[in-house]
Every structure is written in C-alpha cells, then in structure tokens.
C-alpha cells in the first residue's frame, strides 16, 4: 500500500501537479477497499461516483451527466492513484482511465459559503429528524404559539428562513398582520420567496372555506370538526398546509391544533405495543362525495417511522374518511379488535383538550401547518346573517418549502470551486 502511494506521489509531478505545490500527508491513502480520506473509509465505487470534475458533475445542474447505459455506477472501477491534495479536493486516477477529483469537505462537494454551511447545519432539519424537532402539548412551550410579525418575516431572506425553521421544529407557525389584499401565491412566492408551485388536489389550489348548506365536505359545515389530518384518502397526502383567516365574525368556531408526535412519543414510553399495532396495520380511507365524480381510496398505517434512526416521521389519521366497512373485510376480527384497542387509546389522547392549543383566528392571521404531524380542528359555530367565517387554505410539497431554507438566493449561481484545486 505504501509502495503504491509512493508511486502515486512520484507520478504527481508529471501528471497531476502542474507546477503547483504538492502536499504529502496522511490525509489520503489508497486501501484495499478504496481510500482512507481524512479518517473516513471510502469504497472504490464511492470514490468514482464522487468525482467532481466537469465531465462527471454538470456545472449548472450539479448532477451527473452522460452515465453509460450499462455500468452506470462504475461497479468494478478502482482508485489507482492519488494526486494533489488541496483544502477541498483530492485528485484521483481510476482504473477506467478517468482522472478527476473528489471532495474532502462539504464545501468541496456542495459549493462555497453559504451553501456548504447551510447543508451542514440544516439537512437534519429539513429531513424532519426528531432530534431537531420540539414536541409540544397545549401552550407548552410558549414558543410554539408565538405569533411572528409579517413585516419582520418578509423584511429579509434570513428572517423568512428563521420563521420556516421554527415551523419545521414545532410543526406549526403563526404570522399576524398579513395584508389581506394579497393572494396566497403573492404571499408565498412574491413575498416569502417560496417556489411558485401549490399542491393541486381535488379542491381548488386556494380553497376558500366558507359555510355552505348541504356541504360536500365536512369542512364547509358549521359543526364540530374533531382533530384530523387532511386528505388521508390521497395516496400521497399533501404535507405543508397554509391557512389564512380572512374574516371571522361568527360566534364560536375556535381553531385548535394538536401535536400528534408528542402523543406517539408518550405512547412509545407507556404503551409501546399500541404504537407497534398502529404502525403495522394499514387502514383504508375513502372519499366519494355524491355527484362530484370523485372516487379516491387508499390505505395507510396511522404512524410511519423513518428507518435509519427510528424517528417518528408521519401520522395519517382522519376519523371521517376511514373506510370502516372495508376495514371489516380486510382483516379478521382478532386483528381488528387489537387495532381498535390501540386506536381508541391514541384517539383519546388526541381528543384531550389539555393537549390542544386553541385560538380563535382573527382576520389577517396566518398559520402554516405540518399536515403529517399536527392535527387541526374547529369548534362548532353558529352562523347568522351578516356574519362570516372565511379561511383560505392551500397545500404545498415539503420540498418546495424546504428548498427556500436550503437554497441560495434566486439568481445566485453556486459553482463548485474545482478551478481552485
């Protein structure tokens, strides 16, 4: 191994160095399985797939172009020589004849500041790691019920990011003093800089929720809406949900929210067998309002976990769209009985008012919700002539919101610094 390294270093002067100073150090060594780089063991296949030269990583796309039709991950290629080592890169020659460079650092891989540090600091947040989240009940801690001022949020890009990071940590975020003459898209895209792409569903992109007689959805009625997650009958539930209270002059109609992750966490500690049942047995959902031509059905377990760390990842549950008749056809009585026992315990916790944060939203108040974590509901209201309770609501893919946190500013090209190697 040392002989090969010595041979590599000797070759540097003619092949890699290009009259630049060469550092000999122990940060990069070839090994039988690949390369030991800054204390990390890289596999041969990984080194080849990490090449950052412009042939291997598109300068403008940051993705890998022109992979072969077969062997697209260079499975049998080995690193054969190590060349120049600079602050962020290492030159390498591989057994397929390719000469390139791999990154030693975040900065080398993803681009200069601030992108590199953002990747390092925020990846776990946008990936919904429980270690970065704060579970809550009621108004505890108070931070989760904080109302952010609209003018402050949009005053700068960093402020918008700070608000969105707060939202991710708590699963909910509130803003006051929203200008009511702005549309939802103007608020999200023009002012907050979030990509202009709302999640399209069988409801309008911006759904105005206002009382209706004979509603085709319970949300348009005036009765109690128990805590729920939206659109569970979708194969892929919308994730980020925005509410703007446009007007609220009715009697009653207070909104409330519940952090389901705190419920699951508590159940993991007190009744873990129930959590196992809720994560193992999928439940059918269905949405078929008459005369609308809509027929949606799917199955989901109530709770999903992330496999690498065991984090609570997603909760899916809505009592008025669950398809109980189909449930009775899917499973034997014993399985269903076990599930009902676990589910009713869970539901009892969700429906405990001590866990709710409750507020009557006023006109101009904005809520962003994690629809995979935080339940929302509404108390009954009475409607009289002249009164209104009007809420505008939209959905968005998680990644569109998260991109706002991670990306540099619009128009800011971030090229890798390979020319400085």
């Amino acid at each position, binding site marked *: 191994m040392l002989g090969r390294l010595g041979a590599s270093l000797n070759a540097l002067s003619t092949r890699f160095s290009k009259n630049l100073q060469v550092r000999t150090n122990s940060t990069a060594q070839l090994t039988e399985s690949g390369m030991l780089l800054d204390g*990390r063991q*890289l*596999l041969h*296949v*990984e080194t080849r*797939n*990490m090449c950052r030269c412009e042939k291997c990583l*598109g*300068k*403008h*796309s940051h*993705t*890998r*172009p*022109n*992979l*072969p*039709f077969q*062997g*697209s*991950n260079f499975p049998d290629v080995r690193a054969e020589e190590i060349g120049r080592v600079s602050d962020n890169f290492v030159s390498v020659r591989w057994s397929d004849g390719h000469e390139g460079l791999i990154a030693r650092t*975040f900065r080398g891989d993803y*681009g200069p500041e601030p*992108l590199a540090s953002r*990747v390092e600091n925020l990846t776990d947040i*946008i*990936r919904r790691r429980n270690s970065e989240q704060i579970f809550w009940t009621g108004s505890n801690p108070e931070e989760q019920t904080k109302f952010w001022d609209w003018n402050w949020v949009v005053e700068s890009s960093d402020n918008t990011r700070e608000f969105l990071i707060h939202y991710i940590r708590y699963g909910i975020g509130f803003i006051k003093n929203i200008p009511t003459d702005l549309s939802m898209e103007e608020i999200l895209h023009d002012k907050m800089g979030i*990509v202009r792409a709302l999640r*399209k569903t*069988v409801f309008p992109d911006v759904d105005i929720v206002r009382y209706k007689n*004979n509603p*085709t*959805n*319970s949300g348009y009625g005036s009765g109690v809406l128990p805590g729920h997650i939206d659109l569970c009958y*979708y*194969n892929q539930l919308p*994730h980020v949900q925005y509410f703007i209270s446009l007007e609220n002059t009715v009697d009653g109609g207070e909104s409330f929210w519940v952090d389901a992750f705190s419920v699951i966490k508590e159940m993991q500690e007190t009744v873990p067998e129930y959590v196992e049942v809720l994560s193992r047995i*999928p439940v059918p959902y*269905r949405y078929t309002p*008459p005369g609308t*031509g809509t*027929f*949606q059905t799917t*199955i989901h377990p109530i709770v999903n976990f992330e496999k690498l760390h065991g984090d609570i990842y997603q909760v899916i549950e809505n*009592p008025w769209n669950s398809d109980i*008749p189909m449930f009775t056809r899917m499973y034997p*009585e014993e399985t*269903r009985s076990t599930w009902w026992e676990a589910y*009713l315990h869970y*539901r*009892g916790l969700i429906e405990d008012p001590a866990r709710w944060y409750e507020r009557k939203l006023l006109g101009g108040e904005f809520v962003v919700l994690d629809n995979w974590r935080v339940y929302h509901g509404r108390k009954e209201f009475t409607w009289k002539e002249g009164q209104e309770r009007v809420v505008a609501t939209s959905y968005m*893919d*998680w990644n*569109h919101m*998260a*991109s706002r946190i*991670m*990306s*540099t500013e619009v128009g800011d090209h*971030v090229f890798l610094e390979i020319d400085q190697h």
Partner: protein
Amino acid sequence: AVVSTQSTGRCSDCFGGTSNQPLHTNDYTNIKISHVEGIKDHFLSVSWDDGHSGIVPISETGAYGNGYKRTPSSRYYDLSLRKNAVQTFWDTPTNEVIKRFEYSDVADDSDKLKEFLAHFMQYGLAFLFNTPQEPDDLLKILYNLKITPYWDNMFGILSKVSFQRDPTNQAFNNQRLAAHTDMPYYTQTPSAYFFHCVANELDGGESFWSDTFSAVKHIRDTEPDKYDLLTTILVPFRQYPKEWHMAGRYPTVELMGDDIYRVRDCCFVIDTYQFLRDYDAETRERWWQAYRTLRLLMEDPARTVQQKLGAGDLVLIDNWRVQHGRNAFSVGGAGGRRAMEVAYIEWSHVQNRLLKME
C-alpha cells in the same frame, strides 16, 4: 364488533348525505347492540344500548353512498391500490407490454379510457398514439381525458425537454441518460407522468423503459439478503442546481405489507457524500453490492422496451416502478429538433379517473 357496527352506521343522523362522511366521531367503546330488527335491501336495522337506532350496511352497495351506488370492478379497485396480485411484472417486452392505444378511441369512450388506465396500472406503462402534436398540446390531452389536476413542481406544470447549452438538468443535454426514476429527492416522489413526443427528428435519442418490480422480485427470490438491504438502507438524494435545493433519503424499494410498492432509483442524484456520513463502510459495501445486482438487471438490454418515439406518441409511465432512459442524440447539423413534454400527475388523480362513476 360493537365499535365497528356503530362506526358503520348509515342513518341520516350519523352519515352526511351530501358528503358521504360520518357526522360524528365518538368513542363507542362501551356501546353494545341491544336489538336487531331485520334486513331490508342492503341494510340491517339495529338498535344500540345508548338509545340510538339506525341501519348498518351489509353490502358494498349499502356501505357507499347512501343507497345503490354502482361500485367499480374489484380488478380496477385492486389495480388502483397497486396490489402486486393484479399487476404483471415483465422482464421482456412482450406484445402486451408494448400494446398501443389509439388516442381518439380513449378520448371518446370512457370505458376504453379505463381500459387504457388499467393497462397502465397492470404493466407500469402504456402507449397512446396519434395524439395532437403541437407544443403544449399535452395539457389539452389531459383535459380531454379528464385526468387532472396535474402536479406542479420545480419544472412547472409542463416540463419541456429539449436540448439546452449549460443544462440545469441532465434531461436537457443530448447525452445518454441511464435508466432511472424521476425526482427521487422529493419527499413525495411523483407517481406517474405523461411523456409526450412533439418532435423527434434528430439522429439517435431512442427512449427505453424497464420494469424494476420484475428485477426486485428476481432479487427477492434469488438473493434475499440483497433484497433486505434494498428495502432497509436509506439512500440519500440531493438536487441543488441554481435556485433550488432538495434533499431526502429513502430506501430503494418500499413495501406495502408484502407487496413491492415503490422503487426510487436515480443514480445521478445519489448524494454519496451524505451516504458516507449515514452508514459505516461495511454496511455501504454490502449495499453497493446489492445495488449493483439491481443495476445489472435494470441495464440489461434484453429487459428493456426500446422505441424511437414519433411525433404524437405519448407514454404514461408509473414512476414508482418503471425506469426510463434515453440514448444520446446529435445536435447541430442541418436542422430538426427533439422536443418532448412531460406532465406529472398524482396517483390518486389517475385512480380517480379509473374508479369514478360517470
């Protein structure tokens, strides 16, 4: 059984006639049936010890829609839930896999459209020919077929795929694109997309598709250890061109019960640097061997459908199952163009079109 019967109640006090949703969500744990009246049509009349009397459905017709709503065929229902039992995995492109449907037939006849969609769900892809060929016609096609709404994403509602200098995505160059599924870095990777050929006049640029479910099943049957790795190890993906940045990590193969449900595999956006930080070398080594086994199958020409699409050809692809790629094509020269348009759509919206009654 007690909780179930109360939860399936269909009387007008319990079930919204205009919403088809329960009106109450109470804890019925301690409630018991006190009296059974009898059966009439699709319902059983029941009284409970809380004093409530109502009706419980005893058939699908009774359960769904306050009466006699015709339900979709069970085959369509199971296909829409992606059940392997009704899917056909393919490892060679048979005539049935590459069956072509005439656009005017499916646009004018709802039953033929459902047959087209059922074919798509069974095989993971379906071909339409003789569709309109002008730019932006894809949205009109989807409107005519009543398969809406579309999925708005970073590329917009309609993604136009043609050659660009300095491409911000590999699809926009003229090089070979290895077999892949689209946008694996999305938390919710798009489930289906329409790929519409507006023009394909340049040399090369043949499209090809292969069925990952067939490959995964082969691995499950022959090398179960590798199958376990593909279903448990989370692969990080990252896409960070100008102006946006997306990242996520997911297993290559996701299951629903025992069914193969979804595959994410896009080799040119794997975040290898993140992968190093997530797993130790030994785990990664074993994963790379398993992944290589999958890739060898996906990249085997004998397992692919390959076609040079012509103007007016349209392919509906299950992005959670079928990988696609493209041969390199020439640019410059005497003229001609290669213009494709793509619209993504939620699985639930395709399902909706298949299952809904007119």
